[in-house]
């Protein structure tokens, strides 16, 4: 079969966020080319941000992704505050971290239960999975709802929060509303721990990636909404130096730009965060990780589901810690007067590192905008991974090989809207 000239097209990589296709060329039993083609129609955010006011970037860039809007808002306000020389700390910073915990819980619960677990248990979707695993699915939905409850209480809305602004919040939540939120989060902590135990029992194919890993690092905590950029290979630099290390370039087969780290293919996201900062996890999250069989590092992309589950435990316990120390900030935001210059912002979206850079004129008009989303950084690593999957599975029938490739892609929780919605898999066997 592998020696016949052959072209195969399988529609629909489902359960990812965005639109793309995979093209694999096999010639004489050798994998000649693997291209993850992202054809999500471009929306030109970086172009139309020019000329807008610096205060608008948080609400506008939020619309790049409905699954991780807080990540976009966070990187945007950090970049603007950096440009204007304002540093926001104390309870406002704590509320921002709490909001981001909500997004991690909600997005990770979505990916673990609705998008990824069906691959391990052999179902096309969560509805089919619920027929046999009703209690687990209900637990996942409860967890997702708890994450959304944080987003709604702190941000005013789960998708594209409205309470957030440059310098802080239009209005900070009342202490009583966070106390009520904590009541919902305590059971969520049990659900999160049960999730780690559940996913750690799945079967994981053996695979170790040797790409470099890139994630934020922050002393004293597991970095989420800010930090220094660190790599597994020992690099460490502030956000403003990211452009010196990470270069984006266009490839003909994709509307997402591809990035390299000092010329090398690298990976961001849960595996990178965990490997770089596992020592900073809360005791509950560390114990759950150890019980799930994770060591201090994890480089198996199939096990990313376990790392996400551990991160949910961390995010819930971190949310509870922040709520316990909450004292409503007054005023609820710092003034951020415009200053001409360039600002950089970086944060850990659920699926990986998200960088923004803006140049402002003296009146606060945006002169240029650069946004580097996690999926474009991960695209080359996903292609390298797929190459291995295809090489190891050349003897499989096309539909089985396709399923394996789709699964490999879902390991990375790619947000193709940050790129679409389905991947067409095309295998050319020559």
């Amino acid at each position, binding site marked *: 079969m592998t020696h016949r000239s052959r072209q195969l097209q399988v529609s629909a990589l489902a359960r990812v966020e965005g639109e793309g296709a995979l093209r694999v060329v096999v010639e004489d039993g050798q994998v000649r080319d693997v291209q993850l083609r992202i054809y999500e129609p471009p929306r030109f955010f970086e172009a139309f941000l020019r000329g807008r006011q610096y205060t608008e970037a948080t609400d506008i860039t939020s*619309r790049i992704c409905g699954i991780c809007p807080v990540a976009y808002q966070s990187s945007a306000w950090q970049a603007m505050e950096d440009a204007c020389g304002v540093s926001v700390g104390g309870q406002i910073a704590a509320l921002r971290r709490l909001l981001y915990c909500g997004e991690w819980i909600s997005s990770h619960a979505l990916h673990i239960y609705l*998008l990824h677990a069906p691959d391990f248990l052999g179902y096309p*979707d969560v509805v089919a999975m619920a027929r046999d695993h009703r209690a687990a699915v209900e637990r996942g939905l409860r967890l997702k709802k708890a994450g959304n409850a944080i987003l709604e209480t702190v941000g005013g809305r789960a998708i594209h929060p409205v309470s957030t602004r440059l310098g802080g919040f239009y209005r900070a939540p009342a202490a009583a509303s966070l106390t009520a939120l904590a009541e919902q989060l305590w059971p969520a902590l049990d659900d999160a721990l049960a999730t780690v135990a559940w996913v750690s029992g799945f079967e994981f194919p053996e695979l170790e990636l040797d790409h470099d890993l890139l994630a934020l690092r922050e002393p004293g905590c597991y970095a989420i909404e800010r930090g220094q950029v660190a790599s597994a290979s020992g690099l460490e630099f502030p956000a403003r130096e990211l452009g010196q290390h990470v270069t984006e370039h266009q490839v003909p087969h994709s509307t997402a730009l591809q990035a390299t780290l000092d010329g090398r293919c690298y990976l961001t996201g849960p595996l990178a965060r965990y490997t770089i900062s596992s020592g900073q996890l809360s005791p509950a999250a560390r114990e759950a990780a150890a019980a799930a069989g994770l060591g201090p590092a994890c480089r198996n992309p199939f096990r990313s589901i376990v790392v996400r589950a551990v991160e949910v435990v961390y995010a819930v316990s971190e949310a509870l810690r922040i709520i316990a120390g909450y004292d409503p900030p007054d005023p609820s935001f710092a003034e951020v007067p415009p200053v001409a210059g360039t600002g950089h912002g970086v944060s850990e979206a659920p699926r990986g590192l998200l960088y923004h850079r803006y140049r402002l004129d003296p009146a606060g008009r945006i002169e240029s905008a650069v946004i580097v989303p996690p999926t474009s950084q991960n695209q080359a690593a996903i292609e390298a991974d797929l190459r291995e999957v295809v090489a190891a599975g050349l003897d499989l029938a096309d539909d089985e090989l396709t399923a394996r490739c789709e699964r490999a892609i879902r390991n990375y929780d790619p947000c193709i809207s940050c790129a679409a919605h389905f991947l067409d898999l095309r295998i050319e066997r020559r």
Partner: protein
Amino acid sequence: MTRTGESGGERPALAVWKFASCDGCQLTLLDCEDELLALASEVRIALFLEASSEVRPGPYDLSLVEGSITTAGDEQRIREIRRQSRYLVTIGACATSGGIQALRNFGDSGEFRSAVYASPQYIDSLATSTAISAHVAVDLELRGCPIDKRQLIEVITAFLAGRKPDIPDTSVCTECKRRGLTCVLVAGGTPCLGPVTHAGCGALCPAAGRGCYGCFGPMTGANVPALTGQLQACGMSRRTVDLVLSTFNVAAEGFARPRREAAGDDAP
């Protein structure tokens, strides 16, 4: 509309489609954590790529369409989806008005392309981002950036019950009054688009202490020029008024026309 699927199955077939968008509106369906499994027993989810790798062929009884039309291929695809769909509902600002990406309609889209991509010739993209209704007949438009979860459930419930959904075409002000909120515009002097913006969110922004920024788009018969004077009295410059009307529903006629007219007033 009837409760039973006319497309052949015993339960109505639901399809969820995506065009240029952020996925937030279809995510709203998955955010119905308390209703999702019950809904799945009332409809057959025949196609919902974000949630399922099972793809069943049409026809479909209810199609939810997210996103705007921005490529030649998508112009064709939406026509085929219309042919396959008995009742087609657009969900969200992109699908009902072209979304934030419709800013290109008012700029130089070729320049936009080369500003983002070093090799723009690889990019397949139309010069405009347009609403679904500019291409095919639409049975119902659900507003919002993103849509409201309760309104989505109302639309699906009404479809299943064979009745008309209760989606009031009034302003955000009516919801604000119903919540008993103090008017941020009159009492606080905060610029607010509530008087001209389609209801549906439940007055989220005034409740959060900020003015409405119009993410549900213009209500029918919105009197934008009257509000413009009020916004300028709150200290907004003409440029800022123009900016707040040109966001997630920039191409909606109810906002685009008053912007054109204001620009015309400035012409020599």
